[in-house]
């Protein structure tokens, strides 16, 4: 037996994003996996020092293009948590609507890519064909296919045009029919099943130990869903179920996602219905944020997005921490990839729907120091003056 090392990445067709895995194999059996991330790390420090709360929402939207509304939602939740700000009912429905639409588009995207990864291009094309109407709905609602710019502290930025509701419902009906077909096709295909069943199993214990979230955890029988655990927005007003399966293999992860699409469509339908009747403002004007700290979270398609904000009473946060779902899901590879063939390991890598853009965001919005006493401020300003003076004289 001799161990060989296979580099996967930074530019590998499996990974849309630049990532690097060093996979150690015997023959084709994976014995160990080393992960090296940071290729997508952008870091936002200097520009963020000038960002206000509103601007940071624009920023977090660009953490990741796929969950580009989960981060803003979690972010505004965090700000709202500082001051316990309430939002209007109509805004709550709109937020939920956008969030669930994103879930459908993200899960379909993953399904297609998973098909591509296991060499089933037809599945890829089909899934993405039916993803287009979702994007169309986004375009009708927000005017953009991907970055929607819908969130505001205290509500949403844009109203849904009441005239567009019938059109949206029609598209939704269309999607529903196709979803059932795809779910059936994916469920009934014996070859697909044989390729995915029992592959890359993440045990229940490992899912808890690695603190996995989202479909990755739910496929392993861990019932965790922010939408139910801490219902914000309209989630306590709509009826839906949390999908949990037990096996923890790639097939179960697929099933969880497929069923979640159905649930999401159910939620969207309810939201659209409510939007007909519920009227009123879409945003509460928030004047200022008092000092304090807040935690905001949201169930993104990949799992819990976590934002932590600390305010000192100015219009800028002094600390903004983001934890994306992939950040805790990716380490589970060490548990789920060992001892399986290379071909399986690679689909397992894709099965948590990893999003490295999220993982490596490291957004930290830093303003001034917390509880800075006057003496500190004085010192700081003196230091700054000194620095400027030095620069001038040095030049």
């Amino acid at each position: 037996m001799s161990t060989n090392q296979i580099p996967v990445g930074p530019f590998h067709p499996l990974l849309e994003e630049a990532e690097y895995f060093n996979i150690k194999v015997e023959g084709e059996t994976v014995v160990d996996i080393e992960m090296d991330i940071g290729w997508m790390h952008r870091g936002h420090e200097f520009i963020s020092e000038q960002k206000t709360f509103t601007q940071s929402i624009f920023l977090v939207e660009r953490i990741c293009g796929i969950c580009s509304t989960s981060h803003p939602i979690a972010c505004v939740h965090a700000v709202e948590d500082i001051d316990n700000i309430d939002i209007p009912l109509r805004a709550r429905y709109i937020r939920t609507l956008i969030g669930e639409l994103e879930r459908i588009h993200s899960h379909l995207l993953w399904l297609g890519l998973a098909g591509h990864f296991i060499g089933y291009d037809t599945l890829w094309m089909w899934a993405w064909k039916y993803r287009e109407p979702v994007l169309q709905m986004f375009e009708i609602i927000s005017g953009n296919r991907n970055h929607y710019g819908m969130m505001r502290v205290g509500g949403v930025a844009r109203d849904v045009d009441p005239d567009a509701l019938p059109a949206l419902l029609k598209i939704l009906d269309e999607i529903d029919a196709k979803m059932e077909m795809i779910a059936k096709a994916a469920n009934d295909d014996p070859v697909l099943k044989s390729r995915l069943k029992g592959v890359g199993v993440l045990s229940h214990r490992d899912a808890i130990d690695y603190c996995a979230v989202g479909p990755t955890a739910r496929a392993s029988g861990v019932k965790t869903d922010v939408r139910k655990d801490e219902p914000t927005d309209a989630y306590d007003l709509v009826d839906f179920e949390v999908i949990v399966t037990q096996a923890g293999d790639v097939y179960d992860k697929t099933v969880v996602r497929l069923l979640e699409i159905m649930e999401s469509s159910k939620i969207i339908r309810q939201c659209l219905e409510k939007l007909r009747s519920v009227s009123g403002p879409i945003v509460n004007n928030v004047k200022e944020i008092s000092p304090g700290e807040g935690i905001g979270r949201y169930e993104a398609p990949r799992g819990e997005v976590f934002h932590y904000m600390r305010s000192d009473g100015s219009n800028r946060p002094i600390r903004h921490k983001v934890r994306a779902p992939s950040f805790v899901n990716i380490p589970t590879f060490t548990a789920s990839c060992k001892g399986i063939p290379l071909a399986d390991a690679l689909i397992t890598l894709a099965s948590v729907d990893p999003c490295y853009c999220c993982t490596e965001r490291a957004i930290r919005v830093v303003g001034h120091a917390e509880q800075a006493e006057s003496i500190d401020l004085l010192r700081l300003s003196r230091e700054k003056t000194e620095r400027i003076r030095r620069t001038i004289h040095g030049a």
Partner: protein
Amino acid sequence: MSLLTLFYLLIFPGLLFTAVLGLSVGWVDRKLSARFQFRVGPPFFQNFYDFIKLLGKETLIVRDSVQSLFIAAPLIAFAALVCISALIGVALFFGASFIGDLYVLMYLLMVYSVMVILGGSATGNVYSSIGAGREMKLLLADELAFILVCLVPIVKAGYEIRLSEILSAQQLGGAFIASPSGILAFLIALICIQAKMALPPFNIPEAETEIVEGPFMEYSGPPLAFWKLNHFMMYVFYPFLLILLFLGGFSAGGWGVLWFILKYLLIVVVMIIIKNTNPRVRIDTALHFFWNIAFPVSLVALILAVLGV
């Protein structure tokens, strides 16, 4: 070597015919696949454009590789495939063959795999090496069943290992596919060919999302053009071989030509359908399938053939 031989080799069933037909059928493949996926698909001349474009690109050679082997591998495979195509074509269209030509074919067909493996591993790339290993394992997997299904027509033709004998036996007693053993063998042969051409679900050696096109990943420019051409040429002679062994071959008179084209297209379309409705399997699944399922079935076909059923 007479002029006629050269004509056979270079023009009609050989080089020119195979290449042009192969690239065109390659278009059928791409177009049909696109239609399966609700897409429009490429224009008819796309494969020709691709080929010509690749000829004009730079050839990158890995500095530490065995360069001569790296360059020669696609050309040798090309030559071997043209020879195979000429052999099959001459037997199919002109009824000319020699004793034991099916053995020669079987072994020549291995040349393609050998060249894929040697060309790939000449570079020392890890992906190519893994791809080479997979190519060999896949060859081992399908070879066992493929030999058996090739023996079936031989047995049915009265233990004559000669393509023209197999043809004439079918012209006398009807196509072999009309018997139970024939139809079993034909089905297995179809799947074996899917594996031999490394089409999905058996595109394991060149799995793009796993090992980055495997043995072909280091190729660029003209050598890559030849690999692409090689791949498309296989679309020509494998169906021809199947027609020859099981479907009664070719007759020029009357509706014969049309009938032949129909048979050919039928096989190609079935292959494309299989290709587009299956995910890629793992190499151990492929081994399991061919050794534990296809092999016993084809053994049954052979026994039936010996018993005259």
